[in-house]
C-alpha cells in the first residue's frame, strides 16, 4: 500500500497510526516535498479484515508472537495457556503502576499473558522504568495492538 501526493507526484511517507479503541484504525501519511498530510481512516470491518491476515499496516515493529492472531481474536478459555515467566535482565524489569495493573486485569485472560509480555518488552527496549496506562496507549498505537 502506497500513498501518492497528487500535486507533487511524490510518494507520501507513513508517519503514525492510531487505534482509538472503537475497532477503527487511523494511519497518517505526509508528503516529504510539500508537507501535506492525509489520514486513512478504516472502519471496523476494514480494520478487522486486514487484522485477520495477521499483518500490520505501517509495518511490524515487533516480531509476531506465538499464536498472536488466535490469542488476540479468539474467545478462548481462561487458563488455556500456562505462561512461562520471562526473565528480564537484572535491574531492567519495569514495574507496573496500580492503574496499569488494573487495566491489564481487564484484558481477557486468554490473551493477557501475551499482552503483558509485549508491554514488558516494549518498556525494557525503551528503558521505561514504570508501565502506566499512558505507556500502554503509546505501545498500542506504535505496535498496532488492536484488540489488546
Amino acid at each position: 500500500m502506497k500513498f501518492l501526493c497528487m500535486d507533487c507526484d511524490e510518494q507520501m511517507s507513513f508517519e503514525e497510526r492510531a487505534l482509538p479503541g472503537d475497532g477503527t484504525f487511523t494511519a497518517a501519511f505526509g508528503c516529504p516535498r510539500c508537507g501535506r498530510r492525509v489520514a486513512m481512516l478504516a472502519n471496523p470491518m476494514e480494520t478487522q479484515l486486514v487484522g485477520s491476515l495477521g499483518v500490520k499496516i505501517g509495518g511490524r515493529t515487533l516480531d509476531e508472537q506465538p499464536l498472536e492472531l488466535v490469542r488476540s481474536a479468539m474467545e478462548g478459555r481462561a487458563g488455556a495457556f500456562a505462561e512461562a515467566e520471562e526473565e528480564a535482565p537484572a535491574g531492567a524489569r519495569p514495574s507496573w503502576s496500580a492503574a496499569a495493573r488494573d487495566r491489564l486485569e481487564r484484558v481477557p485472560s486468554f490473551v493477557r499473558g501475551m499482552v503483558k509480555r509485549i508491554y514488558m518488552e516494549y518498556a525494557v527496549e525503551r528503558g521505561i522504568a514504570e508501565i502506566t496506562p499512558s505507556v500502554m496507549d503509546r505501545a498500542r498505537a506504535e505496535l498496532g495492538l488492536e484488540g489488546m
Partner: protein
Amino acid sequence: MTRRLRTYAEVVGPDRSGLAAQVGVQRDRVRRRLASVKAVVAVMSGKGGVGKSAVTAGLARALAGDGARAVGVLDADLHGPTVARLLGARGPVRVDAEAVHPVVAEGGVRVFSTDLLLDDGHPLSWRGPDSERFVWRSTLEAGALREFLADVAWGALDVLLVDLPPGADRLADLAALAPLAGAVAVTLPSEESRRAVARAIRAARADGVALLGVVENMSGYACRGCDAVQPLFPGDAGAALAREFDAPLLGRIPFVPGDAPPPVPSTLTDRVLEVLA
C-alpha cells in the same frame, strides 16, 4: 485533461507497510517450523460423521507404537475439534516467548487443537465487528491454521497428521501453507458418502494433493459378543472410490462400540510408512 496517475509499481519507493513481505515472513515461519517434520499427511473426507478423527487418532497411535516414531496430530477442524480428546490430550498449553508447546498425549503423540483452547461445549467464536463477519472469518481461520503450523513447537517429527474438517476448503488452505506428502480419504460405505468424498478428492487433486488411498470406516458392525461383523450401511464406497481414483483401498474398519479410536488396518499404517521411507 486528467493527468495520468502513476501505478503502484511505478512508484518505486519502499512500501512501508510491506504487507506482502509480512505475509512472506509468515510463510517462512511455517517453512522453518516444518523443516524438522519428515512428512505432513492430511486425513480428509467430503462428508461429516465418517469418523475421520477416530481414524486419525487410531493411525497416530499405530504409527507412534511404543515410541517407535515421533508423531504429531494437528486438529484442523477448528469448529468441531474431537481428535485431542480421542487421544487423551488435555491442557493447559504451555507457552513461552518462542512458541506454544503441543500437548503430549497417550503414546507420546504431540497434539494441538482448538479443543485445548475453548471452553468445554462452547463454539469457536471470534472477537470483531458483527457487520460482514463472514468476510473476515474465513481469513481468520486460515490464519489460525497457519499459526498452528508455524507457532507450535512440533519438534522433530516423523509424521504430522492433519485431521481436516468435512469439505475441501481447509485442505486447500493447508496445501497452500505446507508441503503435503498426500491425503488419506475416509468414507462410509454408502453412496451418499461416495459422492461427497469424490467431490473432495477432486478438489484435493486440483490443489495438487496426492491421494494416498481410501479408508472405508464403519464398514459393518463388529459384535462384541460373537466377533462377527454385521452389515451397517449399504454400499461399497471405499472400493468404488479406490477404482474411480486409481488409488489403493487401505482398509475397511468396522464400527466397534465404545469411545476408543478403532485399531487401524496395517495396510493404512504401511501406506503412510511408505511415504516416510
